[in-house]
């Protein structure tokens, strides 16, 4: 039997890499847009000030960019190193988006980021501007494909199980690529990157205002970043709304955990914090209908009948069906070469129970409940901080347009101190998405205990602690270099 420790350490290593990766990536996504807008203004207005402004943010972009790439490559390979069963079981579907990401997106980034950094004196203004935009577009395309892959883990579509090859096989590429979960997840993640980039630029610029340095540079940067950030935040809210509907539909246990909802039903309340609820609000958010049925954790474990009279089986029934599917699968594998007729019969049993195949690896219904407090509070941190940051950006834009922001120290301090908050919001969002999916590696198809590689716990622990040390070292160095670069400041004069 697989050791629980192996599963936990494998998950911990992947989570560690993913969390560090998401420290660097959103800044890349957001800063790319902010600096591209600034360079566009430079090309249109032909004002060297905007060139220097864009170049300063590009410098910070460059410091951050490399670590994002470094952590990203580890993530890709960890599917194979630590989740080998997963890689075979669904590699037929999951590998394709990763390959497309490499072929289409990464090369755009790699090619044009070099032109962006080194091409100022080697290519024309317009070609350089195109390169800056293409760097950001390449990053966005990269996000599309990795999120197509991730969304497939949340809501697997477009595939069929083949017991002969013992894996799920893709039968509809477009169903995978245009998975509705992927569409909202991409916009949610990409625009959250806009928020990160904007809050970063606003916060750093406010530091200059506090120090009474580079005033024009700071106010101009704040104006651009606020507009980009406000657009991004509204898009995050819209895509978050559709994400909520998708979670309710395809991952009801995740939603129940995020709400700490033990017993659901129609007109389910939304919990702001424990003890404070808005009646009916959860039903509206999850189904866009106040009478919409939202199942709670107990409903999902013990079965329920929704508002339309549809009966949803209990976890025990699903586990039983899963065990039956596994048994039929074993029989099929034994009989397929020696007794095709008997194999065909057990194949029918397998097909009848295939929708619960993954539940065959689950031992008790309790395993199906993710960590409720973690998901519940992460969700509140994400939404709460997101709302606060939107308000902040609106206020900052208002006062910068009024020409008063340079005199408002309290606002400058809040903006500066908000930089870590936008990272916290992003991390919390991914905790909801990934920890909320547990125990599944692929929702309903493959739990993590059937997805991991056969490794010794010691081997995974060794690499885990190496990665802890390496990533922490990188983060420390990056922060120190960023601080130094910010203190040095842009190549604009003080009154600029």
């Amino acid at each position, binding site marked *: 039997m*697989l050791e629980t420790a192996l599963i936990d350490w494998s998950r911990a290593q992947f989570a560690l890499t993913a969390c560090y990766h998401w420290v660097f990536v959103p800044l890349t996504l957001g800063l790319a847009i902010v600096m591209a807008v600034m360079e566009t203004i430079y090309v249109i207005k032909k004002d060297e000030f905007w060139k220097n402004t864009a170049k300063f943010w590009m410098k910070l972009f460059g410091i951050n960019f*490399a670590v994002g790439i*470094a952590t990203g*490559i*580890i993530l*890709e*390979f960890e*599917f*194979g*190193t630590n989740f*080998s*069963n997963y*890689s*075979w079981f669904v*590699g*037929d579907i999951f*590998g*394709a988006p*990763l*390959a*497309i990401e*490499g*072929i*289409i997106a*990464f*090369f755009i*980034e*790699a*090619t044009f*980021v*070099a032109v962006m*950094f080194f*091409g100022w004196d*080697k*290519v024309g203004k317009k*070609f350089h501007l195109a*390169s800056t935009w293409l760097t950001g577009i390449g990053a966005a395309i990269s996000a599309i494909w990795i999120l197509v892959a991730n969304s497939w883990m949340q809501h697997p579509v477009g595939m069929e199980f*083949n017991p002969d*090859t*013992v*894996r799920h*096989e*893709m*039968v509809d590429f477009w169903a995978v690529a245009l998975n509705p979960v992927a569409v909202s997840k991409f916009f949610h993640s990409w625009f959250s990157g806009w928020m990160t980039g904007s809050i970063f630029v606003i916060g750093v610029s406010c530091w200059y205002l506090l120090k009474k340095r580079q005033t024009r540079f700071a106010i101009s940067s704040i104006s651009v970043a606020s507009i980009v950030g406000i657009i991004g935040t509204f898009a995050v809210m819209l895509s978050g709304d559709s994400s909520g509907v998708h979670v309710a539909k395809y991952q009801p246990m995740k939603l129940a955990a995020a709400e700490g909802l033990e017993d659901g039903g129609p007109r389910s309340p939304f919990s702001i914090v424990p003890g404070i609820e808005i009646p009916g609000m959860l039903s509206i958010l999850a189904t866009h209908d106040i009478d919409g049925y939202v199942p709670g954790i107990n409903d999902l474990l013990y079965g329920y009948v929704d508002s339309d009279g549809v009966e949803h089986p209990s976890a025990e029934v699903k586990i039983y069906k899963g065990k039956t599917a*596994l048994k039929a699968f*074993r029989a099929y*594998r034994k009989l397929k070469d020696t007794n095709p007729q008997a194999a065909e019969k057990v194949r029918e049993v397998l097909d009848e129970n295939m929708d619960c195949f993954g539940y*065959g690896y689950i031992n008790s219904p309790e395993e199906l409940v993710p960590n409720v407090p973690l998901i519940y509070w992460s969700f509140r941190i994400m939404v709460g901080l997101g709302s606060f940051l939107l308000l902040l950006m609106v206020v900052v834009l208002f006062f910068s347009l009024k020409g008063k922001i340079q005199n408002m120290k309290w606002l400058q301090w809040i903006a500066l101190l908000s930089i870590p908050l936008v990272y916290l919001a992003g991390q919390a969002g991914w905790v909801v998405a990934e920890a909320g999916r547990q125990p599944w590696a692929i929702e309903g198809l493959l739990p993590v205990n*059937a997805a*991991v*590689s*056969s*490794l010794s716990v010691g*081997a995974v622990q060794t690499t885990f602690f*190496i990665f802890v040390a*390496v990533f922490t070292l990188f983060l420390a*160095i990056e922060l*120190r270099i960023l601080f*130094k*670069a910010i203190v040095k400041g842009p190549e604009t004069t003080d009154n600029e």
Partner: protein
Amino acid sequence: MITYEFLQNYWWMLISLLGGLLVFLLFVQGGNSMIFLAGKTEEERQLIVNSTGRKWEFTFTTLVTFGGAFYASFPLFYSTSFSGAYFVWMLILITFVFQAVSYEFQNKAGNILGKNAFRVFLTLNGCLGPLLIGTAVGTFFTGSSFIVNKDAAGSSLQPIISQWTGCCHGLEAVANPFNVEFGLMVMFLTMCLGALYLINNIDDEPLAKSLRGRLGFVFICFLVCLVFVLVHLVTMPGFAVGEDGYVFIEKNKYLHNFLQMPAVLALFLAGAVLLVVGVVLTLFRKGFRRGIWFSAPGTVMVVMAIFMIAGYNNTAYYPSIANLQSSLTLANSCSSEFTLKAMSIVSLIIPFVLAYIVYAWRKMDLRSLTRKELAETDHKY
């Protein structure tokens, strides 16, 4: 008619091409191995770092794409090798991860570890990266110790399909001399390519002179390793696949593959000639700086041919020495016909990708890097 077998072969060809491009682009690593070997002054070292630093993303991206393409087309290799040879792949990753940050961090104020530490990281990656990748590819011919049992998926307690039976999660590969020779050959090859690239990309006579001196030495090392590898390769038994998919040992299998696939043999020989011509012209013709233009395509051709003899002509490309029937072949480890077909359509975009890379690269490299440019530019490593 596009058959499933055709798609498997097409994707192995693409894997071979990506492998070839990756080894060529490892000139970045080879160049970095020259930082302390050929760079005698701070300026020279800075020239080397800034020259390879403008290309490292391509190597990195090709490595990622190579991994992604292998995952998409031959997922059983991805799941078996990466989980099994765990420590080897992790070591490779770690060296590349250090390389990725070293360019940006080394010359920036506040980098904590100091400039030389990051240059040491670049040099370590420059030597260890190709050495480890080469050693790992060596096992395509010598085999690894693993078992693939797809029936295991039916167990609710131990549903793991690929089990490694080797003692040290891949590190045991160094016990086989062929793997080590192969690794050293790749390392010295990338050093040659690195020197050729730097000679071409940097307009600096003292540095070029130093690089030519190192090039001669590493080229001889490469040739020695190449001879060892080739002699072993054509004399060693290989892992053949019967029509029913049964894997068996065949004497001189890889020699047979060369002889039974004359186009692959021709590709290999033509590539080897180009590779050698590039180096020899650089070494012996005064002022000749275009050696990389010969050796680069030569390298791609040679590596493609080596991958082809590993996988084509009914050969198990990732053999198991624990259980021959667990060996991975193009047929038993590939993705479904639908996925290969869909991915083949996507692959049609590759020429377009190559075209814009060449265009942008040419724009950037119209003028060679000089000390003057380095002194004047505000974005340098």
